């Protein structure tokens, strides 16, 4: 029996490759200094959905909320096998916290209509909150299974999943539709497929085309730019390479629940922590020396 899957994916700054310029003076993230990548755990969410489709049939739709540049991760979804991708982009959604983001995503999922499984990465490496997936499920009014480490059987509208519970695991069953958040242990994401890369490398969202045209014709009047953007949109649509793009109106969002207005999170304080090396300790290469070193590491809670 085929299943329709939705995957929420996010483009994030690559916090694993931090350099000295990664943080602004005020302690916020300098996004320009970090390469933008596919949020690692979202790749596992995508893989989980693709494996369901490979095994049972159905479809995989990927949604990403973000600036026009976020279409990059959607192209990556196409390269790896997604059937349909949707870019959720709207200036009015900027500065959304997890509450507003999960509201917007849940509205988009509602707009899609029919679905069986929604997969999210457990958390994004920029905020590390792990809140968006669970909040989406709450807003959609569907059950959620977090920390999936192994996908089990799907049978007669019931999914069986093994989830990680810290010092062990448990197997849970749940009726569909369900939202599942995925941890890296669950699977190994497949590589991009060469033929799909050759096919979809030109796929663009309208917002990307607009940015492209503006960069190419900085002096041109607005209406000329709009006409050119429209021309390119139609050309791509004819080739089946136009990435769907939705704004807040398209998903019927209540604007008071989006962006800054819909984000109750207040940043209390940002601390810039600089780790400095302060001198070094020489350990004599003797039994005693090693014992002393181990003791200090235990006291500092580095070991044990």
């Amino acid at each position, binding site marked *: 029996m085929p299943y329709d899957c939705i995957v929420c994916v996010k483009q994030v700054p690559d916090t694993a490759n931090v350099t000295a310029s990664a943080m602004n003076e005020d302690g916020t993230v300098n996004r320009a200094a970090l390469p933008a990548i596919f949020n690692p755990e979202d790749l596992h969410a995508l893989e989980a959905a693709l494996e369901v489709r490979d095994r049972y049939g159905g479809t995989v739709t990927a949604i990403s909320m973000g600036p026009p540049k976020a279409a990059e991760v959607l192209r990556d979804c196409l390269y790896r096998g997604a059937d349909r991708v949707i870019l959720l982009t709207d200036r009015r959604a900027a500065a959304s916290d997890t509450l507003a983001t999960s509201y917007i995503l849940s509205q988009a999922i509602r707009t899609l209509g029919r679905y069986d499984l929604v997969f999210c990465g457990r958390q994004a490496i920029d905020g590390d909150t792990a809140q968006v997936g669970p909040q989406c499920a709450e807003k959609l009014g569907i059950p959620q299974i977090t920390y999936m480490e192994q996908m089990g059987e799907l049978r007669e509208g019931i999914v069986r999943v093994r989830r990680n519970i810290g010092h062990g695991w448990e197997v849970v069953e749940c009726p569909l539709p369900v939202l599942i958040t995925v941890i890296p242990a669950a699977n190994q994401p497949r590589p991009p497929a060469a033929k799909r890369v*050759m096919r979809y490398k030109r796929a663009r969202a309208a917002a990307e085309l607009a940015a492209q045209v503006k960069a190419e014709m900085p002096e041109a009047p607005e209406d000329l730019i709009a006409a050119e953007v429209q021309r390119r949109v139609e050309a791509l649509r004819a080739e089946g390479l136009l990435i769907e793009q939705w704004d807040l109106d398209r998903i019927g969002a209540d604007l008071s629940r989006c962006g800054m207005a819909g984000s109750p999170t207040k940043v209390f304080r940002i601390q810039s922590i600089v780790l400095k090396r302060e001198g070094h300790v020489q350990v004599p290469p003797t039994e005693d020396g090693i014992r002393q070193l181990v003791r200090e590491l235990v006291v500092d809670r580095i070991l044990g």
Partner: protein
Amino acid sequence: MANYFLDNEDIQFLFDHLDLRELARLQEDDFAYVSEDGSGYAPRDADDAVDNYRRVLTIVGQVAGEMIAPNAEQIDREGNTLNEDGTVTLHPLVQRNLRRLAQADLMGFTLPRRYGGLNCPTTVYSMAIEIVSRADASLMNLFGLQGIAETIYAFADDQIKDETLPRFARGEVTGAMVLTEPDAGSDLQAVRLRAYQDEQGNWRLSGVKRFITNGCGEILLVLARSEPDIADGRGLSLFITERGPGVRVRHLENKLGIHGSPTCELVFEDAPARLIGERQRGLITYVMSLMNGARVGIAAQSLGVAEAAFRLARCYAHTRQQFGGPIERLPAVAEMVTDMKVHLEAARALCYETSRVCDHENNNLRVLEFRKDIPPEEKKRRTQLSRTLKRINGMLTPMAKYYCSEMACRVADTAIQVLGGSGYMKDYPAERYLRDARITTIYEGTSQLQIVAAVRGVTSGAFENWTAEHEGRSYDDPLLEELKGHLLEGKRRVVEAIQFVKTKGTQYLDLVGRPLVDAAITVIIGHLLLGQAAVNQRKKHVLRRFLARQLPMLETNCRYVLSGDVSPLEQYELLAGPVPAME
């Protein structure tokens, strides 16, 4: 995240340096049929095609670095399994590697799009083979066997092509070239496996094959004697058969290296088979063509192993402290490390130039074979071109296979030396690299056989024609002009040695084949590196060092050739001493 393409400056340099746009135009027939291509992923023009090649290699680099390399050690330790029923179970991690390559659409690398392939040139495929081999040399024997599908494409009938090629491209099946027998190794003319027609006129195969790489694969190309009355190579035909009840793996070889690659002894018991192409052309046309492609593949595999070994040694020499500093500051270590790198780059120049010439030759042959509407003038020109390219390739391909594989063994051996005692231990992959490298000078034709083939080119004018074409180029850098002068002088000495050999007969030619081919290769690589040095500052120094190291060897080799010493032949019993008693 490791990417074995993006982290390799030299491959990327060559990617830009070799004229891939020209190869794309050849491969895609000048983009004349783009509008008829219904695949949805055909390139529009040369830039688009080259962009595709770069993206494909980026995927290969990612799969190799992230997914294949981490499995290599365990696969080497555990190997594959022979089951009681005559089937083989590949190591689970080998299976996973193959699944990754298939998911990434990389198993139909050079096949036309109509069969689901990527239609990449051989040159790009060679790069991919190098990249995969760096991660796990043994996996190359599965990934790098795509020449089997190419052979089916080039010579089989449409029914066989339609049945098998899409399965190859999807990665559902792998193949084997089933040539060697217990008494037919280097001498394939001695193949005995019997092909006969049953009452219904269907072909069947009976006999034993040995040392068959991936003999447990699903699709087997088998060289067999279809004409029992003709004893030599003209009595052999090529057959295709699928794994089934009539084909059994009797033994899985226990090898020095490439443990992930299953080497099988196969028993055929009246196995049903189909003829590829025409009878009697099996060895002389089809297998020769298959082997030429496979030899370039082994050259690329050698580069990959050498690259892995070099990287390990380079890092170790940099971090290992002795006598109050990193050992790379010691002159003896510095020499080892730099010579590894210089010879690796020299071999790469030769391998990819050879691949490039293969692309010219293959595409020209393809046009001659498949396009029926060529005007007579054009056909004449192409037939002429075909002969010229065949002569050049007949020299370059064995040279590349010989030089790259010998280089890989030397580099892998030196890597162990740089690591010293640690290199000898199983804690580091250095010993695995040497074990894996060691096969490359043996299979697909030993170094000695490559020399026999290459020396014919060296003495029959191909070498002089090739160099003459490259000597015409002038350089606006005095250093390069000076180095070119050295190459001219080197060639003069090689030609002198060739003239001498020609007065001596074929026995002597085969006796001094190695020094003569070595000397010729130095001149050829010298010219290739000159071309690179003209556009890249660092390469000037690579060339200078290469010549500083190799020109004295060239002189020694030529002097040796001129010595006329034939004692290994005339005084064999005396010099080799008595045959030892077998224990």
